[in-house]
């Protein structure tokens, strides 16, 4: 089964970031068909848990469950509101607490919302380099929605194009990167010793 996790960093209720995330999730679900499981997670209820993680170094049970979903996901939809010309602090904190290497090779669809279309390059100036650094595979189309875009036919086209790109990428993901589970299948110690002596 293909698993997609859609993450919304929207804060208000109702939230246009959540609305965009839902539209992206629905479009990806439509492309992948009934075998895919597409789940949406909001970061707002995790805000305290995220701050605590920064301070204690470990996730509480609730946050750990979400991070585990990130690990298991075949693809991610990551959507943030634009705050001060970039992703929000909450969105970045969620990325910051991920284990190193968690996103390597993982297909990611990026999205952002803002009150004005003058922020639209945030996708390419802030989100795309962030996920490039984490060695995620970012789909070519990012979806930006200013308030006015919710009344515009072009948004739907971009949502569908981006969703299609993510759907086609997740199919081949397993070949891109496999993280060894050192708990289930530990690297034999003799191999590690040998690795140092050569």
């Amino acid at each position: 089964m293909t698993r997609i996790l859609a993450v919304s960093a929207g804060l208000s209720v109702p939230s246009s970031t959540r609305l965009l995330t839902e539209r992206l999730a629905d479009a990806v679900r439509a492309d992948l068909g009934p075998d895919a499981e597409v789940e949406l997670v909001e970061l707002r209820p995790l805000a305290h848990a995220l701050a605590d993680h920064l301070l204690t170094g470990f996730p509480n049970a609730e946050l750990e469950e979400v991070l585990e979903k990130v690990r298991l996901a075949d693809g991610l939809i990551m959507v943030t509101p634009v705050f001060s010309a970039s992703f929000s602090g909450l969105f970045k904190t969620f990325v910051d607490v991920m284990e190193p290497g968690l996103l390597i090779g993982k297909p990611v669809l990026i999205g952002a919302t803002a009150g004005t279309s003058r922020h639209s390059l945030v996708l390419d100036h802030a989100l795309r380099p962030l996920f490039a650094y984490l060695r995620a595979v970012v789909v070519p189309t990012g979806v930006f929605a200013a308030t006015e875009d919710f009344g515009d036919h072009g948004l739907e086209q971009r949502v569908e194009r981006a969703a299609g790109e993510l759907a086609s990428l997740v199919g081949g993901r397993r070949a891109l990167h496999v993280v060894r589970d050192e708990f289930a299948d530990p690297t034999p110690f003799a191999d590690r010793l040998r690795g140092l002596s050569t």
Partner: protein
Amino acid sequence: MQFGIFTVGDVTTDPTTGRTPTEHERIKAQVQIAKKAEEVGLDVVAVGQHHNPPFVASSPTTTMAYIAAQTERILLSTSTTLITTTDPVRIAEDYGTLQHLADGRMDLMMGRGNTGPVYPWFGKDIREGINLAIENYALLHRLWREDVVDWEGKFRTPLQGFTATPRPLDGVPPFVWHGSIRSPEIAEQAAYYGDGFFHNHIFWPSSHTRQMVALYRRRFEHYGHGRADQAIVGLGGQFFMRRNSQDAVREFRPYFDNAPVYGHGPSLEDFTSQTPLTVGSPQEVLERTLGFREYVGDYQRQLFLVDHAGLPVKTVLEQLDLLGEILPDLRAGMAEGRPAHVPDGPTHAGLVAARDAAAVTGAAEEVSA
């Protein structure tokens, strides 16, 4: 089963008075606390190793030797010895000397340390942390077991015809624990050598402790050192006790809220439910501690962190008195239902006896063959 205390040797301001102990006071307090630990019947006291303020624990073997000279029974250990940035030759020599001075009343726990700049200060690269722990320990292991060592590795200058002196007391090297909170490679390392594995257990939820210990036990058996339930497991823990539960919470809260590691984060209530921290009556601490076995199995060593977060020495000593009071019940509880084949906590006498028994068995096999 051994019970004891471990410290990181931090100098922290008491948040209720604003007073910060001097380094001198803190170092002397560690000795006072260790002597008290022996007095109340504890088995182990472990000191830390750090090379930066606010810690005073840069020279563990000096502190351990001093404590050893002032005590008679308690076993000295570390929490931890930095195997990454300390030359393994110096570890072999320092702890080898300590083993003789303390008549075998010592062991040590390997750790990697977590303060980034300490690595470059000692000429190392933090990105090689795991590899340093692996290579340095491989050398230490040989230095204590082979009289003359030829060695070449990636991180240290080579050795030709080197003999680490003094040779181990009675020809038996100090027992070694490997401590790690979340690196499966270290559990694997401990299992490979048949050494002990210690989980700090105090900053993380029990699910992580369970996962690390389970891996260590499984691999201990895989490498032929015995059954999984015979692997040597140690756990950390922390508590704050008063006769009355509410008094404990009231008194400890400001220390918790301002603690260097988790302060200003989750509430005391959240943290006590998420981690093994217990703040309450002696009976509550007793019950919680006896529950640790449920997720790690019968184990060998339980160490508690009692002197931290700026708690005054007087309070720490009171905590030890209370721990001493529940100690008989802790021992009885841990002994209950414990299978006979589960080993006791490691001691020098035990290791010597095991070595001699193996030699007799080996000789008998030779005769019969």
